[in-house]
């Protein structure tokens, strides 16, 4: 009966220890990329084979999901820059610009990429799905300037982009509704451009139907998705390190579920007897 009335704070301590200890130790669990993540990787490889490849990356997440989403952003930017794919980044949520600028500046510097020539950041635009329709009609009208207030026609990487179909791939990094309720209905369905996404683990189960219908060509779900992508590009980062803690804590939670159920059935048997 004690196990059925365990103080939740004891479980919190176990979870904390399960996270902290693996982060401080150096060991690893095998990471096997899943099909949706491989499809994202293949999409970037396809884009790398195009002439003057350009990808639009939409940062639709904020600091509240940074531990899950930022490793994803870093991984896809590393893949893109390592294959000389140009990147134009935008934000459709208000608290995203800081993280987007940080990721672009860091990975851009790692690969010696120049702002304006190899990548650009256009800033934030409100309106949820409205900017997507606007971008599909006239990209320069939607983004007259970049985040540094330079006229878009003076930013070389974006100067020749007329609409969303000029991108070889559109990639959304999302922690909310943007994949399912903005990009797919108002972008992919209307303008038919290749689209892939990375999302928080909470969102991932809802997005599998769009993978089946190919409205979403590839998907990275949560920290596990980011770790799988780091494995594919062979650059282990914070997601790979985080998976140690993730795996150990999952085992602890499974153990508590099993213990709780065992205690429940044992108590029922005692009552029946």
């Amino acid at each position, binding site marked *: 009966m004690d196990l059925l009335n365990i103080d939740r*704070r004891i479980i*919190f301590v176990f*979870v*904390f220890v399960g*996270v*902290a200890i693996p*982060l*401080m130790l150096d060991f690893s669990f095998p990471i096997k990329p899943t099909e949706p993540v491989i499809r994202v990787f293949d999409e970037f490889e396809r884009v790398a084979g195009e002439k003057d490849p350009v990808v639009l990356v939409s940062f639709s997440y904020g600091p*509240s*999901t*940074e*531990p*899950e989403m930022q490793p994803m952003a870093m991984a896809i930017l590393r893949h893109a820059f390592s294959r000389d794919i140009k990147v134009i980044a935008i934000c459709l949520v*208000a*608290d995203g*610009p800081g993280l987007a600028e940080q990721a672009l500046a860091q990975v851009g510097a790692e690969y010696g990429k120049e702002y304006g020539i190899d990548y650009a950041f256009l*800033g*934030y*635009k*409100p309106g949820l*799905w409205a900017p997507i*329709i606007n971008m599909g009609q006239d990209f320069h009208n939607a983004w*007259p*300037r970049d*985040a540094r*207030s330079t*006229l878009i026609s003076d930013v070389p990487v974006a100067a020749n982009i007329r609409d969303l179909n000029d991108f070889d791939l559109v990639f959304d990094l999302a922690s909310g509704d943007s994949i399912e309720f903005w990009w*797919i*209905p*108002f972008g*992919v*369905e*209307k303008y038919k451009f290749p689209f892939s996404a990375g999302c*928080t*683990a*909470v969102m*991932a*189960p*809802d997005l599998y*139907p769009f993978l*089946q*219908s*190919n*409205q979403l060509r590839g998907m990275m*779900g*949560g*920290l*596990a998705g980011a770790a799988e992508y780091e494995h594919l590009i062979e650059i282990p980062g*914070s997601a790979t*390190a*985080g998976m140690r*803690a*993730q795996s150990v*804590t*999952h085992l602890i*939670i499974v153990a508590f579920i099993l213990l709780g159920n065992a205690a429940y059935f044992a108590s029922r048997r005692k009552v029946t007897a």
Partner: protein
Amino acid sequence: MTNDKKLFIGFVGLFAIVNAILLGGGYLDMGWTSLGVIVAAGLTISLYSFLYHDNPLFKLAEHIFVGVAAAYIFGIYWYQSLYGEVIVRLFSIGDDPGTTTQRLLLLVPSILGLLILTRLSVKTAWLSRISFAFVVGVGAGFTIPRYISAFVLSQIEPTIRPITMDLDGLNLVLIMIGVISVLVYFFFSVEHRGFVGGVSKVGIWFLMISFGASFGYTIMARLSLLIGRVRFLLDDWLHVM
């Protein structure tokens, strides 16, 4: 002295000692970045203190977060939208390339936006209905056909593909059984007995598996956030990683 006061004094004392050791030992320098790390570490621990129970430290951190987030979002909206895209364009500030026609067109959404503010007064609140009518009308007009296309028509096609004799074919069969049985479960015009009851029970199983998958993913997501904060505390603040 209440437990809350003891907790507050104990935390502040311990936090000050740890930071003094970190600063004295050269793990953190006397710059703005280190100050930011110390403040972030204090706020992180204060917020997680809610796991013990509700306390003044948690409330303090919560209120700081609400204030900072509101100001940050306002700053972004002001500089990148209101000032950057409306005021600069309307009043031709700087080297704005907008034409007179574009400026006149911009007046329409600007006026509609300002009308929403009339709700601040009871006498003028009726004017805001014009803006809301516009938002509802345009929103429904754009959304309904797009959602039908994306969520119904495009989803039906892969569900009714010809079944093949391989693993993909098995997936299709499972999806078909799942879709039909869940639809039957939510069809309340017929009593769920006999054959219909059996099919709806299969639907319940599919729903339960889907809820379980969602719950598992949710745990993974929440743990990822915890991992991020613990990594910050251990690495950026305490330097023990």
